[in-house]
């Protein structure tokens, strides 16, 4: 993602303010649900007991990374794994505050273009190399090096010009223009500091044998099976955001890759693994009912899972048809039946935990098949063909929704079929085509899609700019797939990213969300959430603001 702050360096303070808002939201979004009986004599896990060191944790995750060089790979699972191997300059608490980590303190130049970091002493990488300014420089230079072909880290460092090593304990990062998200980005695992010695190695080794300074060291990675980390006993530089100092409690973490939902859940219930993510919604009732397991969930911030509609093509170029589609879907019933209430339906393009979420949209565009039918009639789709679909001038009201087969997970295919069935009820022939990534990407670049369905996990409303601003076309690496040129949205979103006024920013993002719904530029479907199941033994599991799990404070309760 590219988050650029334009308009000079007077706005550095806004960054802190942003973090505060974020923190508040994060607080409300993370809910730990104790398992077992509702009378809740069990207190939430972390509250009382004293952590005990020892034991290995097995975490079954749905995704397997293809490369765990944080400078290269963009996938969420890479972030989760690398968080344990790499330390960042700064840390963020679950409440969203930015705290020192490898950088003990930092200052920002008045123009917002230069950040000066004082670095912690006594930190060594897993390969024995000492941490210093050169390591930071090497890491950042690696991320932006075209050779690295970075798919995400480089974007986090947008406007990066250079890193100056003032002395071994002091560096300056110079940007070409201010970047409001810079500190937040630097705290991301994707900019975790790598051993400069290890960065000399080939891309292949960087991908498969990462070397950082984190609380866990990389041990092995067997494709299609697992990735094993071991405790770094020398670890004495825990982030300030963490609950404890010194080495991690766990002796090691094994990430098991179990893509099959049923198998993953079965692995948890049979005790083969301690923690799983993406608990199949259908199994959550069983999970809650199981006295030896606990259930934790966190809504993900960013763009909710939504259908972005192509206004440049018939028939969705007609706003009435778009509105009809928006109103034809009985989302409440559909989401309830597919996800058993564990995922929420979305009212806005942004998920509720995103900075800038407009709560006022809730309840404003309820399911209304009659309205949808009326709108379609008005739009001239009055005839019906033999299959019950609407037609105009002999042409069927057909909307094609393509997706890549690999993107079809978390029950999205089922949601799609529900949307399809609802659309049919008002006479829309919605064709859902799940195809291989090659064909799908071909369609994306040809721009001949009617609908694109997807989500982005990002902290704030700036994601709207990524998805809708006219300068964010796909060939520029942006997310405006259909090349939408909407002056209203452009004004609202660009102003939001440059203004220093928090209120203006909030208002613009709210207006933009409103505008998207009014003009039915998209159909928000569900709010993504990280649904985690864990054994009761597992204590101190934490969600990051991103809704990812961290394991530094996690320990295994031998009494359970």
């Amino acid at each position, binding site marked *: 993602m590219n988050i650029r702050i334009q308009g000079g360096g007077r706005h550095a303070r806004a960054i802190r303010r942003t973090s505060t808002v974020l923190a508040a939201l994060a607080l409300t979004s993370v809910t730990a649900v104790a398992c077992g009986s509702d009378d809740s004599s069990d207190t939430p896990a972390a509250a009382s007991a004293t952590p005990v060191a020892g034991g290995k944790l097995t975490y079954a995750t749905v995704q397997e990374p*293809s490369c765990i060089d944080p400078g290269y790979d963009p996938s969420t699972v890479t972030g989760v794994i690398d968080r344990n191997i790499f330390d960042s300059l700064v840390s963020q608490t679950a409440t969203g505050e930015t705290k020192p980590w490898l950088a003990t303190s930092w200052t920002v130049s008045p123009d917002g273009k230069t950040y000066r970091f004082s670095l912690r002493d006594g930190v060594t990488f897993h390969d024995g190399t000492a941490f210093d300014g050169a390591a930071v420089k090497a890491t950042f230079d690696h991320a932006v090096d*075209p*050779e690295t072909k970075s798919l995400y880290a480089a974007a986090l460092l947008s406007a990066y010009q250079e890193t100056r090593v003032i002395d071994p304990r002091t560096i300056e990062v110079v940007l070409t223009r201010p970047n409001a998200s810079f500190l937040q980005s630097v705290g991301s695992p994707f900019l975790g500091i790598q051993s400069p010695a290890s960065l000399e190695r080939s891309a292949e080794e960087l991908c498969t044998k990462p070397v950082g300074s984190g609380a866990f060291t990389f041990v092995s990675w067997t494709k299609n099976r697992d990735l094993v980390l071991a405790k770094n006993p020398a670890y004495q530089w825990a982030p300030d955001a963490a609950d404890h100092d010194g080495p991690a409690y766990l002796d090691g973490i094994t990430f098991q890759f179990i893509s099959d939902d049923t198998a993953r859940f079965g692995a948890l219930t*049979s005790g*083969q693994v301690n923690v799983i993510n993406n608990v199949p919604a259908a199994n959550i009732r069983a999970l809650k009912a199981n006295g030896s397991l606990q259930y934790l969930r966190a809504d993900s911030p960013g763009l909710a899972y939504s259908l972005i509609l192509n206004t440049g093509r018939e028939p969705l170029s007609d706003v009435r048809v778009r509105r009809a589609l928006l109103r034809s879907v009985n989302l409440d019933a559909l989401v309830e039946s597919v996800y058993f209430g564990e995922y929420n339906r979305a009212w806005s393009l942004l998920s509720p935990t995103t900075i800038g979420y407009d709560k006022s949209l809730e309840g404003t565009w309820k399911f209304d098949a009659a309205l949808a039918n009326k709108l379609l009639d008005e739009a001239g789709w009055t005839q019906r063909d033999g299959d019950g679909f609407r037609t105009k001038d002999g042409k069927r009201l057909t909307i094609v929704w393509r997706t890549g087969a*690999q993107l079809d997970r978390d029950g999205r295919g089922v949601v799609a079929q529900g949307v399809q069935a609802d659309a049919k009820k008002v006479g829309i022939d919605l064709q859902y085509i799940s195809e*291989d*990534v090659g064909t799908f990407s*071909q369609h994306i670049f040809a721009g001949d899609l009617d609908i694109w369905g997807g989500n982005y996990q990002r902290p704030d409303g700036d994601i709207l700019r990524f998805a809708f601003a006219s300068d964010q076309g796909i060939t520029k690496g942006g997310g405006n797939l259909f090349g939408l040129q909407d002056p209203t949205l452009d004004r609202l979103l660009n102003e939001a990213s440059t203004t220093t006024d928090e209120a203006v920013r909030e208002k613009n993002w709210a207006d933009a969300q409103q505008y998207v719904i009014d003009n039915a530029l998209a159909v928000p479907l569900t709010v993504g959430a990280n649904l985690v199941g864990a054994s009761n033994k597992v204590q101190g599991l934490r969600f990051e603001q991103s809704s990812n799990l961290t394991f530094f404070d996690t320990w295994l309760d031998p009494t359970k």
Partner: protein
Amino acid sequence: MRSTTWWLARRLALAVLVVVGAATVAFGALQLVPGDPVHVMMGGAAPSEEVYERTRHELGYDQPLPVRYGEFLGQLLRGDLGQSYQLHQPVADVIGSQLWPTVQLALAAFGLAFVVAAALAVTTAGRRSGWRRVASAAELLMISTPGFWVGVLLLTFFSFRLHLFPVAGGDSLAGLVLPAATLAIGLIGVFAQVMREGLERALEQPFVLSARARGTGETAVRLRHALRHALIPMVTLSGWIVGSLLGGAVLIETIFSREGLGRITATAIAGRDLPLVTGVAVVAATIFALLNIAVDLLYRVIDPRMKEVVR
């Protein structure tokens, strides 16, 4: 002796031809897969133009097809399978690490299927009894049931419900039981029927009558005389067996979340990981070709009449 050497040399030459052919087919097929290979490789992420061009150049996609094919063949003949696009590792390493679990699974499944089928066949061949009817019905059921369904049911029952076996992965013996059983079930029916038919045909042969007329007992007749003849059609099936084992591994490894060649191939094909797919094709073809040679040699052992080996 000279003719055997000559025969082996010819067969090995043909094997090389088959391997190169298989690699070519894989290479060609992936050229025809729709979509821009670079985009596919990035897995849907939208790279900037610079990254895109650089990747394209590195992978040689800015070269014309014949040049790429030539380089591909040259690499192949040097024994270099290249570097996986998606896993960022040498293909040989990837296959090397994934081959053994699959081979383990395949061997276990084959062994299980063979033993069960042989027992079924030997005890029921040529006998009209209720037990034979039950066995035949069971075989038909096993042949007609999709392996993935069996796998799901076994997994649900034995792992989720009874917690008897690990749910996912596991290089332990216990972790091998269900996948091997699932894979074996598809084979047992075929094996048992082929062996029974072979046994029955052998039992009708005059030499069995002679053996019986010498006072040889029924069990000895079946094991000492008939079984060996029943194995010959089994050997003929070897190509099919290897195909089913490797093909079945794709499903089994997915269902049981096992590592292995099958699963890695499925993802490689979907991700258009050309070097990995061709690498797997080369390995599969090599196994196939060597196995065929081994089988023809085995024929000579099982049935010494086969002086001139049939192709």
